[in-house]
Structure formats: C-alpha cells, structure tokens
C-alpha cells in the first residue's frame, strides 16, 4: 500500500472534564474511501474537527504526506488539501452561493480586492459539475432559500473546488431525500475515481459499508477497530462487531469505575 496522505496519531482532546478523544489514530491512503463509524458521542465529529483545524488537539501528531505539522488551524488544513463538508454544512445563509463557495478562500486581484467575475464563473462551473443546473438557481442565489439537499450541494461544490486530496463528509446524507442520497454516493465514487480520498462518516452502517473500502470504528474517544472491506463479509457482520465492541467497552468502563 502506498504511504498515507494524512496521518493522525494519538490525538487527545479534552473539553473541560469531558475527554472527547483519548488517543485516536487514523490513516488515510490515497484513492480510498474510509468509513468512519461510531456511536453518538464516540468522538467522530470531534476527530473530524481536529483534522479540519477547527479544534486544536491537546496532544498528538498530525502528518501530511509524511511530514509532521506543528502549526495547524482551519486555514492551514485547507491549504494542505483537506476539505470538509461539515455536518452543519458551515454555510452563511444570508449570502449567495458564490460567497459561500469562496468563503475564506476568495479569488483576489491586487490588494485583497475580490475578483467577482472569476468567482462567478468558477461557481457556475462547479454548479454544473455537480448537476446544479436548475433554471431557478444562479450563483447569486441566496443559500438560505435553498432546500437541505441543495445546501449540501453548495457545501460539496465548495469542497470540490481546488481539487482537494482528502474530502471529509460528516453525515452527508442526514435529512436528504433518496435521490439526493444517491447523488452524494455518485459524488463519492467520482472523487475516488479521480484518485483522491474520502472520509465518509455516517450513522447508517449499510450506507457506509456499501461505499467504503476500509473502516475505522471509534468508541469512547479511542480507535476500537480498523479493518478493510475484505475482512468484513457484510454490513450485518460490521454491525455485530460494533455491538460487541460497544458491550466490551462498556463493561471495561464499568470495571474502571468499580
């Protein structure tokens, strides 16, 4: 297997007295879809936010293409080719599709002035790419007037721009219609086909099983399982394994408490 694009090692993150992550490690290889699983509160979203630079880890190491990064924040994460479609979409609802796509990464001319024309045409291109060609939308359309699936489309279009190496999708199909969910799956396959990686986080284990090549299960802030699809024959087995892990983890935690 080739070297990982991204490597997180021993990530610890504490919120007050709550230990959200207790030494999680994660590797992402080029051209793979990594399914990140775990129960509610297991620490999936926190881990993703550490990777995206939104939360600074208390300890642990982040490596990009083998190199340790000491300074890490949201802007640096994006500069290093990691694009995240957050669970809450991270959109500004009073603003246009263009403004949202280029938020934090405006296309500029001299002295920080924005190249509106280029932003517009790039946004237009991206919208076509993801099949966003309805007559009623324009890159100027206000995001707050779009449906949930359409907003997801804007967040995905934003992640697509710049050809990121790793695209993280945090619960991308929550609250989406069947058709929209299919669209997200096709998008994941297209990204994979282009040789880039996807981290796919989902509640629906059947979905994740179908789409991912490899799985990482997180339980109570720790990596509980890392397995390739070849090691797990079907989604039922994956569910059973996760239940066993949860049981095991629970009795262990109870043991600790006692």
């Amino acid at each position, binding site marked *: 297997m080739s070297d990982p694009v991204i490597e997180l090692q021993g990530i610890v993150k504490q919120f007050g007295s709550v230990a959200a992550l207790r030494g999680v490690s994660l590797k992402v290889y080029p051209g793979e879809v990594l399914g990140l699983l775990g129960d509610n509160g297991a620490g999936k979203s926190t881990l993703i936010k550490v990777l995206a630079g939104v939360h600074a880890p208390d300890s642990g190491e982040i490596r990009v293409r083998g190199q340790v990064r000491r300074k890490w924040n*949201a802007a640096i994460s994006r500069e290093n080719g990691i694009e995240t479609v*957050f669970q809450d979409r991270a959109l500004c*609802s*009073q603003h246009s599709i263009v403004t949202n796509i280029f938020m934090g*990464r405006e296309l500029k001319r001299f002295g*920080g*002035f924005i190249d509106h024309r280029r932003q517009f045409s790039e946004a237009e291109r991206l919208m076509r790419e993801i099949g966003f060609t309805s*007559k009623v939308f324009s890159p*100027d359309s206000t995001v707050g*007037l779009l449906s949930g699936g359409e907003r997801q489309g804007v967040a995905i279009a934003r992640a697509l721009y710049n050809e990121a190496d790793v695209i993280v999708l945090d619960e991308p199909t929550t609250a989406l219609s069947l058709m929209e969910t299919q669209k997200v799956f096709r998008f994941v396959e297209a990204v994979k086909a282009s040789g880039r990686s996807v981290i796919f986080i989902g509640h629906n284990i059947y979905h994740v099983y179908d789409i991912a090549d490899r799985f990482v299960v997180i339980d109570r802030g720790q990596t509980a399982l890392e397995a390739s699809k070849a090691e797990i024959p079907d989604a039922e087995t994956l569910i059973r394994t996760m239940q066993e892990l949860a049981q095991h983890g629970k009795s262990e935690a109870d043991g600790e408490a006692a």
Partner: protein
Amino acid sequence: MNNASLQLPLHIRLWRNHKRSLSTLIALFVIWGIFTAFNPTLFTNWITYNAIFLTLPITIFLVTTLVFVIVSGELDLAFPSVMGFSGWMFVLALKAGWDPFLAMGGALLSGVAMGTAIGALVVYGKLSSLVATLGLNFFIRGIINIGAQGIAISAGNIRETLVYQVFAGRYFLFPNQMYWAVIWTLFCAYLFRSHQFGVRVQCVGDNPESAAQMGIDVNRVRMSVFAFSGLGAALAGVFSIFVNFVWWPTNGDGSLLPALAAVFVGGTPTWGGVGTVIGGALGAFIVGFIESGVVGIGFDGYYVQFFFGLIIILSMIGHRFSGRRIR
C-alpha cells in the same frame, strides 16, 4: 444540458444587491416630499441644505464605519469618546505647532490605535461588546475630562491653513467635507462588497462558526472592525474641528444615538451578516434632515424628538419588507 449563463437578469440583481439602500433612498424622498409639500419655499431653497451639508459629513464618517461593526455582529458604543479623543489629539498637535497635515494624520492614527485597543479588549477578553464599549465610552470620556479639566481648546487659526482649504473649504455648491464624505462612503461601500475585509466581516456576522470552519480568523476580523470604527470616529473628530473651530471636552457626546439610529434607518439590520454602507450614509442624511425639517414645516422645537422617533420606527417597519431575515 443547459449551458446558458446562470446570470440573473439585471433588474433582479440590482434589487437583490441594493434593496436595502434603495428602500432608504425611497424613504428619504418620501420624507423630503412631505416636508416640501408643507413648506415649498423653504425646502426648494439651497440655503436650507447648506447647514445640513456642513455637519452631515461628521455623522457619515461615524455611520459608514459603524455599519461594519453592526454587520460583524458586534456593537460599538465607545465611538463618541474616541471621536472626542481624536479631536483632542488634533487640537493639541496643532497647538504644539505640528504641521496641520501631520496633526491630522496623528489624530487619525490615535483613533485607529484606540479602536484596536477596544477591539482587543472585547475580543480577547471575551467580553460582550455592548457592555464593554458602554463602559469604555465612559472610561475614555473620563480620561478626556481629567486631562482637559473641562477647558475647551480653540483652533480658530486653522481657517488659514491648507488643510482646512482642502478638507473644509468650499467648491461649487458644497462644502468640501461633503465631497470627502461622499468619496469616503463610496470607498467604504466598495470595501464592504468587494474586498476580502468586507466580505469576511459579512461572513463572520452571518455565522461565526461557519466562518471559522472555513479558515477565517474570526477574532482578527472582529478586532479589525473596531479598529476601523476607531478610524471613522477619528475622521469625525477631526472634521468636527473643521466645522466648529473649537474642541470641547464633550466633543462627540451627542453623536451616539443619531449615528446608531442612522445605521438602522439606513437599512442595516440588527442581527448581523448583512447591511449597507450607502444606506447608512443616506440614513445619516434622513436623521440630519429631520431636525431642520420638523422646525421648517412650522412645528415647535418640542416636536423634533417626537418626529425623530416616529420616523425611526416607521423606517424600521418599512425595512421589514425589503429585508426579512433569511436563515
């Protein structure tokens, strides 16, 4: 596949992008129309407007920068004291024999420094900007009062300087400060819409979490709106000396409520994320116009505040239609 441009028709884009300032312009015309209907001779006479144009720029400098603060989701109530402070620095520098241009530059810098300090306190001290700037307004005014010991400082000889000719002389129909105020407003409007600074201010005000997730340094943006507000206050302070030729320790005190009212009358909503600089400048015009207007159509001075409040409330109701909140 439809490959036609996704560009919306021009008139839709115009309304979409400028509805807030356009509705303020309409409000201004309606108010002017009412005043003129009641007293045609007065309100078609240019002299009536001369007085307004003399002092209007001071409010415009305050309002245009305040719009950035409100849009960022913060509030600055300390600008009146910063205005007084920078005006003070200006007259002190003049008295000390500084070159007037240098004195002006120094006064503006003092405003930016003060604004930056206020921003740092609010942002890194994690304070509510409403309460913190309310306190700071008293605090800074207190420093001015202690320093000036209640004594006004005259700057009467400024009239002979080139600075005065450039910034407050008279060219054609208007006092020069009015031209500068218009240039400043257009500059701010361009900054707001087409510069990284303005666009990021809007994103931070709309949804700070989203902005942070997309790599925008939210704290830095918040700091810079206070610094910018300090610059606007300093401009107002310096121009108030050009108009009055004297600095009082109370300089700027009366500007708090009219300037804030102008921001909101101008069409910038209270909830942050969106707003209009040009609307704010037009709002300053409305606010400045009401006082002379109400007296001009024959009411006693006692009625000014009544109509002032009425027009603020009516215009807020009007803006409900042009700019509802989108979530």
